[in-house]
């Protein structure tokens, strides 16, 4: 599959997602509403306009942004850590953001406040992991980084468990549980801004450093001998990928597997060169989460949790990759 093919696929999924739901929006109806909006004509079909611009549209864009963010962050981490089994969870970012958000819910903060605490939690986790890795010297730095990520992630997870234990079982506990499962049900236009800005800001260093990232996959010594400023590139890309992950987790909760499986599939389709891998991972991640989110809101009479759906899809795909990819992870 080429980048053009992936773009078309994403457009098709978006059209499908817009059409499906309690109020179906057919392509002709969509064209009519968009046309009158573009020309500034008075709205004839206000119900359709509300669905497109206020409800389904933002949620579709949100799903694409969150999927793209998790997937490109995963692609960057996998290259940096030279391990295709690595995902945004590796630096404890997801768990840190989760603890932040749960603390926000626990304190009864408004949605914007919850997003802010999720963000702070994610950044705190990655700084803690980095601090530990910097303090422990004389060992394989990547191993230390990955292990500190696991340890900090576990600590954050026990923080979440404590807050759940303390939470009011009538109101807070269901909200926390629901959020932890991952959902875009309450995504609105305000959230769109909250997630777009950090994702775009974080994409920039990844795009700029795309050629250096290829060299980084050879390991510190070879990359350094080939003229790459290893520390600077790693710090910039880890910061960018972490920002993306925190922004995604802040608006959608814990949606696992995308950062692990989608970059892997992107690499299978277009090769490991980051200049092509990054756009491919972005497109496929956006399309995948949009598809999953559309299924989540249309399959049952109630919304299904996103994290559960991505796990159901992700686990067999991952096992398949594991079974056939033992050699060299191509």
């Amino acid at each position, binding site marked *: 599959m080429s980048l053009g093919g992936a773009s078309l696929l994403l457009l098709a999924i978006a059209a499908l997602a817009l059409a499906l739901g309690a109020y179906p929006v057919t392509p002709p109806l969509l064209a009519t509403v968009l046309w009158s909006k573009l020309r500034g004509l008075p709205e004839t079909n206000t119900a359709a306009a509300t669905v497109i611009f206020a409800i389904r549209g933002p949620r579709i864009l949100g799903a694409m942004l969150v999927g793209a963010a998790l997937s490109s962050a995963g692609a960057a981490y996998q*290259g940096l850590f*030279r*391990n*295709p089994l690595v995902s945004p969870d590796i630096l404890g970012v997801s768990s840190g953001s989760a603890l932040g958000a749960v603390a926000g819910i626990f304190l009864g903060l408004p949605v914007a406040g919850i997003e802010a605490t999720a963000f702070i939690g994610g950044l705190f986790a990655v700084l803690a992991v980095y601090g530990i890795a910097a303090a422990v010297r*004389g060992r394989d730095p990547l191993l230390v980084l990955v292990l500190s990520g696991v340890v900090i992630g576990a600590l954050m997870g026990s923080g979440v468990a404590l807050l759940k234990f303390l939470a009011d079982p009538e109101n807070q506990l269901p909200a926390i549980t629901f959020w932890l499962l991952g959902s875009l049900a309450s995504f609105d236009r305000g959230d769109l801004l909250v997630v777009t800005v950090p994702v775009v800001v974080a994409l920039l260093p990844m795009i*700029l*450093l795309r*050629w*250096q990232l*290829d*060299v980084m*996959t*050879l*390991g510190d*010594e*070879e990359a*350094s*001998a*080939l*003229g*790459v*400023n*290893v520390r600077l*590139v790693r710090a910039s890309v880890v910061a960018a990928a972490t920002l993306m992950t925190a922004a995604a987790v802040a608006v959608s909760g814990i949606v696992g597997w995308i950062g692990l499986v989608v970059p892997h599939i992107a*690499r299978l389709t277009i*090769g*490991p*060169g980051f*200049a092509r891998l990054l756009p491919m991972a972005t497109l496929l991640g956006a399309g995948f989460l949009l598809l999953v989110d559309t299924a989540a809101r249309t399959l049952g009479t109630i919304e299904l949790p996103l994290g559960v759906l991505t796990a159901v899809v992700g686990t067999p795909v991952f096992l398949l990759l594991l079974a056939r990819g033992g*050699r*060299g*992870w*191509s």
Partner: protein
Amino acid sequence: MDRGLAVSGLSFGYHRRAVGRDASFTVAPGAVLCLLSANGGGKTTLFKTILGLLPPIAGTIAIDGEDTAPWQARRRARAFGYVPQSGAGQFPFTVREMVLMGRAAHRSAFAAPTAADHEATGRALESLGIAHLAERDWLRISGGERQLALIARALAQEPQVLVLDEPTANLDFGNQARVLQHTRNLAAQGLAILFSTHHPEQAFACATEVALLHRGALVQIAAPERAITSETMSLLYGIDVEIVSFGASTKACVPRG
């Protein structure tokens, strides 16, 4: 001013604990210096220090008379081409993409490869006779082909000095000879070459000088015939060795016993 690589009074090691002390030698353009050392003799640490991957504890490393201490990774990568023992790449890049990575130091960090980069990549593949491998998956070629690709990548760096860390380890007999042949040719084209090996007779085949590194000290630097004797080999490897000659130039080291 010395042309090529000049190392003087170099102490090298990790975290200020010296593995080796007071190493001094030069490698002029066109020369091939073969470094012999037993396992744990400090060879890898010395190479890493010369390449700037480890800070030196004392002493200087100069290229064409210019001290390399203040150089950034980019500047170093244009002076030193590095051929690791076996590439650490884990992702399925093509051989061409792998060699193209040798050009990273020749453009700004944000820039895409230029036409000049692609030309240099093509030339490097040609000069090692592996142009036919260009589109093959790096992970699916043989060890010998991979070693040649790594040498091509180092050539694409357009360096003055080529540093090869045990380039023939893990290679079969034919590929060992092939790599040594290329090493000789590259020196003839004006590169200064520093390589290490565990096979002393390889020094007879392609080195202009041999350096013996014993427990962190350079005990001798001389022409292969003078440096490789039963005495020095016994000192280095701790076994009795006989140097056997076949005809005028071919020699072999045979353990006695």
